[in-house]
């Protein structure tokens, strides 16, 4: 199999995997239902998949450093998929929780630290999604790389958002935070060199 073909296949598999949760949710909604509180189910599922996919996107660069260069294009794929779930998550909250009232959104963002963090994460991701095309990458040149460093604060805010919203059981968000912490740590120059040394 030539390299181009392999890339296409990997890409298609990633897109399919990323869309599967949405398909499962849609399937469940049409058959067994989404439980007693469907709005909560949808909010939680879309939020968790947004986070998982953003973390997956963050995992690509260290994997590439380890020699898995075939995965390189998936950084954008997973990032965009994560953004799509985050958008759905935000819209569900805006429409079904807040009844599309801008006043309520402002109030929630201003008053609830966990919403502030989630909202800030989403806002930071918007320009990244908009400039994710090759055209923008070319046009912005060096500045594109700088702009896309915003992915780091965005993921930190998303993790805080999750940590702040649980009532008592921190285990699940703590596991995500640990994974996120490790992925961010691989960006430290010493860790980067170590990874390169481990090349598969």
């Amino acid at each position, binding site marked *: 199999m030539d390299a181009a073909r392999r890339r296409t296949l990997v890409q298609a598999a990633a897109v399919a995997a990323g869309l*599967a*949760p949405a*398909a*499962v949710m849609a*399937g*469940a909604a049409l*058959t*067994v*239902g*989404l*439980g*007693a*509180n*469907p*709005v*909560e*189910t949808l909010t*939680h*599922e879309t939020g*968790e998949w947004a986070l998982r996919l953003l973390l997956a996107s963050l995992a690509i660069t260290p994997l590439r450093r380890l020699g898995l260069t075939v995965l390189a294009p998936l950084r954008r794929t997973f990032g965009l998929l994560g953004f799509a779930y985050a958008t759905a998550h935000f819209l569900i909250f805006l429409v*079904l*929780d807040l*009844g599309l009232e801008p006043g309520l959104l402002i*109030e*929630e963002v201003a*008053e*609830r*630290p*966990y919403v502030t963090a989630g909202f800030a994460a989403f806002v930071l991701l918007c320009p990244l999604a908009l400039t994710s095309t090759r055209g923008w990458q070319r046009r912005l040149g060096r500045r594109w790389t700088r702009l896309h460093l915003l992915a780091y604060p965005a993921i930190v805010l998303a993790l805080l958002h999750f940590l*702040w*919203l649980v*009532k*008592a*059981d921190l*285990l699940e968000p703590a596991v995500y935070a640990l994974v996120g912490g490790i992925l961010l740590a691989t960006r430290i120059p010493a860790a980067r060199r170590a990874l390169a040394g481990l090349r598969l």
Partner: protein
Amino acid sequence: MRMFRPPSIPSSEITSETTWLRRRELLAQGAGLAALVTLPGCFAGQESHAATEPSTLRALEGVTPAPRRFRTEEAQTPFEDASTYNNFYEMGTDKGDPVRNAHRLRPEPWSVVVEGEVGKPGRIGLEDLLAPHALEERIYRLRCVEAWSMVIPWVGIPLGAVLARFEPTSRAKFVAFETLVDPEQLPGQKRQILDWPYREGLRMDEAMHPLAILAVGMYGRVLPNQNGAPLRLVVPWKYGFKSIKSIVRIRLQAERPETSWSQSAPREYGFFANVNPEVSHPRWSQARERRIGEWRKRPTLMLNGYAEQVGHLYKGMDPKKLY
């Protein structure tokens, strides 16, 4: 992933116990396409052992129907929702965990210790506790602190009448309740999410109020384990976490008791926990709630709509302190 639940089987279609016991297979077939892409923990309801089908629970007989002042005419929450969407951290922190773990709890035999400032302390079996009282139906709104609500037809006995039998002394100002501690029966207790046992409490005048009941059933049948079998508190004008489940100890005392959620997060949960749309939880608004089964939120009522009946208990108190 967790909250997808198995389809409910209308009772008319329940042909035999074998069909019931085969429900996992049936479900696996029914889940069809979606099951192909299995996600972690998804369709967890398949493992359910606890009754979510009312006919598997013993029907309660001789229940006095709720009089007008103890019933709301609002649409009742479907039994299936009320028995599969539960906060009972002793059985797990996800709403779907209790129904999955409920089969471990043995609600029979059951006894309760009544102690403290009472003339007649002691341990009493559940049957003896219930014997002198007529079972009464009460159809109440239940408002969770997480901003969702249900309407549930409970079966129970007035808490005040039960307490009176143990002859509270003049020093009895508060009632403290405790849930069973047994990590085998309540596997959520294997982790110290809260400082077990779960504790709750009421001021004496709140406990004596006719709206406060000890429930032994709902929807005309004994309580499903995940709803706090065999004996739980129901105080409809307070957030749901006050209505402590699977009670094994009732203590009357002079001092205000510690309560689990206010111990765990004193900034977020107080002792009174009265439903109040004007006082937000520090992390979310309490102004509106989602009635289970509805898409849009509705306004939350002061004292969950029971202000006329219990408002006088809090005269002269700062409502901001009543969260």
